[in-house]
């Protein structure tokens, strides 16, 4: 089949902060760069990052990169790779200053230096007093970074394919990556983009779960493309949840509400956290509160007609306190629930927030897989960065302020490695038509006009299964059922069809392709969670409540082929300093 083709040095899939930071570095080095994004670039999910970006600038309190490194290793529950973490923490001040020079309006101190706020998990002196390490542009840091990077890319003449959906990677029989098949959403026309190097920067997969904080675009497209190309996904069992999202909607209600004196009630009007955490009560750690809410609902003590949530009560604080100390929460609740939390309790449920796992890479952004010569052989021509990748700097649990840092540092690092690669590989390899045909088959599969299942229905079922069987409460039995249910849904997806077969802006077709991606990632997540029989970071197994460093201080790798699990050691040796040996993680 003859399809239109375009040729570039580098193809970047995804136009969030990671993709745009890499694109800028490459365009400035005179590489021909194409960025493919399914939505307009400044509508990427980076825009939702409000908190800020960590860097040991020591503008407010004493600080250095080594303390930042310690906090990140400890926060990761010792599953993070210490070479990558050292690299990231050392590079942090530089990437922040670069952003400042690009025009990101960081909040300032009176002396003109960048203001830094304190966040959970930040310490001085390797676990001592609170540090202040997060640089922010008011409460819209992600937005400011994304817009600055986009404008810089326009100036550097990066070529954008806006509203193009990536179908699959194209590879030759030797495994070299040749580019990707993409679909122009506005016309429904496929296009082959040939490239000497490809960077995946497609973000996370929050849409796996019914209640989540993520934009609808977060369907893990790049992770699923990697799986289908024979690349395993790493540490997918680690998904960060927040205990209090608005029930059925997902938006975060910050811990600050409970800090101000708000507390949780079950359907019987009981302040149930007293049973689960007699001392800390409603201010117990996130995983404890999340599991308590889940347990109350599961045991029939939920609230509402379907008994599927609990209530967060703050009306006793009075209108003045709520209006003064929690104005943002009040606006959000009023907007989405049409109720005033100063008068009526808020329905809440644990909400999925961040994908720690992803496509395995080294600290140069190269995608690495187990091959004959070792567990981390680079896949030639293929890179990944940001939430879709697993470097791994977050290990089992990500710290606030480290996700923007991750995308900036490793977007830039991947670009630098690609620049070297392009000097050595000056020509495009011949296109493999079989690979193009395979990718086209994925598209034409949705041309069928009848079937027994709808895309919407399957997506809702998948999200519910993942929430119930791979959420905050995990044990052998629940996870086993989860695997069986996802396998069944995957089989039923073969019988799914869409009604709309038009070409122009056929969003039904895009949603079908997104569902396929979610299905692949759901299997990776639930299978990895079943096999990891310990509790570490965000993965907590009630039947294996302790961390088990002897057997499980290692990374999981899920292969789509045969749903096979594989493991590789954690890289505990940093680049230039002594390793941080595992300790019990207490705060």
């Amino acid at each position: 089949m003859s399809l239109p083709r375009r040729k570039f040095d580098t193809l970047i899939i995804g136009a969030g902060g990671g993709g745009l930071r890499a694109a800028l570095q490459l365009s400035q080095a005179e590489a021909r760069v194409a960025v493919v994004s399914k939505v307009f670039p400044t509508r990427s999910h980076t825009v939702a990052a409000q908190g800020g970006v960590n860097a040991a600038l020591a503008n407010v309190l004493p600080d250095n990169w080594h303390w930042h490194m310690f906090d990140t290793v400890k926060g990761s529950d010792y599953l993070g790779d210490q070479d990558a973490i050292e690299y990231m923490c050392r590079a942090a001040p530089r990437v922040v200053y670069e952003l400042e020079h690009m025009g990101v309006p960081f909040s300032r101190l009176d002396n003109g230096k960048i203001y830094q706020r304190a966040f959970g998990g930040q310490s001085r002196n390797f676990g001592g007093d609170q540090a202040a390490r997060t640089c922010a542009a008011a409460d819209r840091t992600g937005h400011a970074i994304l817009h600055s990077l986009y404008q810089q890319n326009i100036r550097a003449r990066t070529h954008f394919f806006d509203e193009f959906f990536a179908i699959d990677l194209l590879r030759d029989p030797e495994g070299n990556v040749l580019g990707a098949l993409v679909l122009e959403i506005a016309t429904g026309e496929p296009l082959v983009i040939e490239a000497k190097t490809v960077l995946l920067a497609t973000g996370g997969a929050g849409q796996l779960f019914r209640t989540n904080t993520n934009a609808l675009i977060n369907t893990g497209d790049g992770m699923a493309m990697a799986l289908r190309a024979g690349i395993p996904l790493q540490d997918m069992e680690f998904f960060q949840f927040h205990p209090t999202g608005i029930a059925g909607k997902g938006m975060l209600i910050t811990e600050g509400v409970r800090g101000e004196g708000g507390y949780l009630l079950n359907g019987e009007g009981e302040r149930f956290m007293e049973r689960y955490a007699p001392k800390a009560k409603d201010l117990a750690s996130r995983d404890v509160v999340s599991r308590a809410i889940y347990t109350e609902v599961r045991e029939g003590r939920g609230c509402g007609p379907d008994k599927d949530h609990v209530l967060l009560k703050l009306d006793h604080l009075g209108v003045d306190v709520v209006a003064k100390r929690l104005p943002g929460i009040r606006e959000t609740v009023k907007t989405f629930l049409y109720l005033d939390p100063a008068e009526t309790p808020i329905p809440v449920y644990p909400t999925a927030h961040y994908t720690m796992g992803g496509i395995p890479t080294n600290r140069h952004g190269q995608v690495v897989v187990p091959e004959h010569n070792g567990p981390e052989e680079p896949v030639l021509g293929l890179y990944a960065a940001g939430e879709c990748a697993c470097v791994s700097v977050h290990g089992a649990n990500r710290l606030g302020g480290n996700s923007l840092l991750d995308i900036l540092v490793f977007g830039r690092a991947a670009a630098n490695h690609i620049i070297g690669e392009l000097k050595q590989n000056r020509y495009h390899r011949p296109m493999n038509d079989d690979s193009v045909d395979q990718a086209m088959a994925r598209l034409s599969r949705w041309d069928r006009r009848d079937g027994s299942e709808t895309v919407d229905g399957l997506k809702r079922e998948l999200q519910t299964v993942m929430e119930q069987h791979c959420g905050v409460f995990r044990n052998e039995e629940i996870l086993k059922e989860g695997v069986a249910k996802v396998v069944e849904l995957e089989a039923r997806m073969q019988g799914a069809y869409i009604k709309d077969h038009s070409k122009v802006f056929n969003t039904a077709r895009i949603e079908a392709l997104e569902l396929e991606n979610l299905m692949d990632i759901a299997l990776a997540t639930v299978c990895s969670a079943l096999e990891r029989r310990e509790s570490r970071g965000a993965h907590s197994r009630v039947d294996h409540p302790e961390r088990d460093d002897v057997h499980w201080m290692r990374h999981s790798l899920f292969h789509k082929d045969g749903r096979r699990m594989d493991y590789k050691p954690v890289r505990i040796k940093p680049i230039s300093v002594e390793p941080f040996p595992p300790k019990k993680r207490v705060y």
Partner: protein
Amino acid sequence: MGAATEINRLRWQCRRGMRELDLLLLQFLDSGYADLDANATLAFNRLLDCPDALLLEWLLGRQLPSDKEVADVVQRIRRRPAA
């Protein structure tokens, strides 16, 4: 472009970087958009061209857009849909 295609195009423009915006905009597209007159339809299109951070300020009721017609559409989006 036919009406169904135009709705599809708008559906994709309602895909934003934040969950808050996705939910509000798509709910309105399904339940309130059909009632807009020609001018308000144009205003809705202008709204969708604005950056996400600004949309959030407007749709959460923290600010009102200076464009009166866009402000009116914002008020409609914030209104509780009929059950």
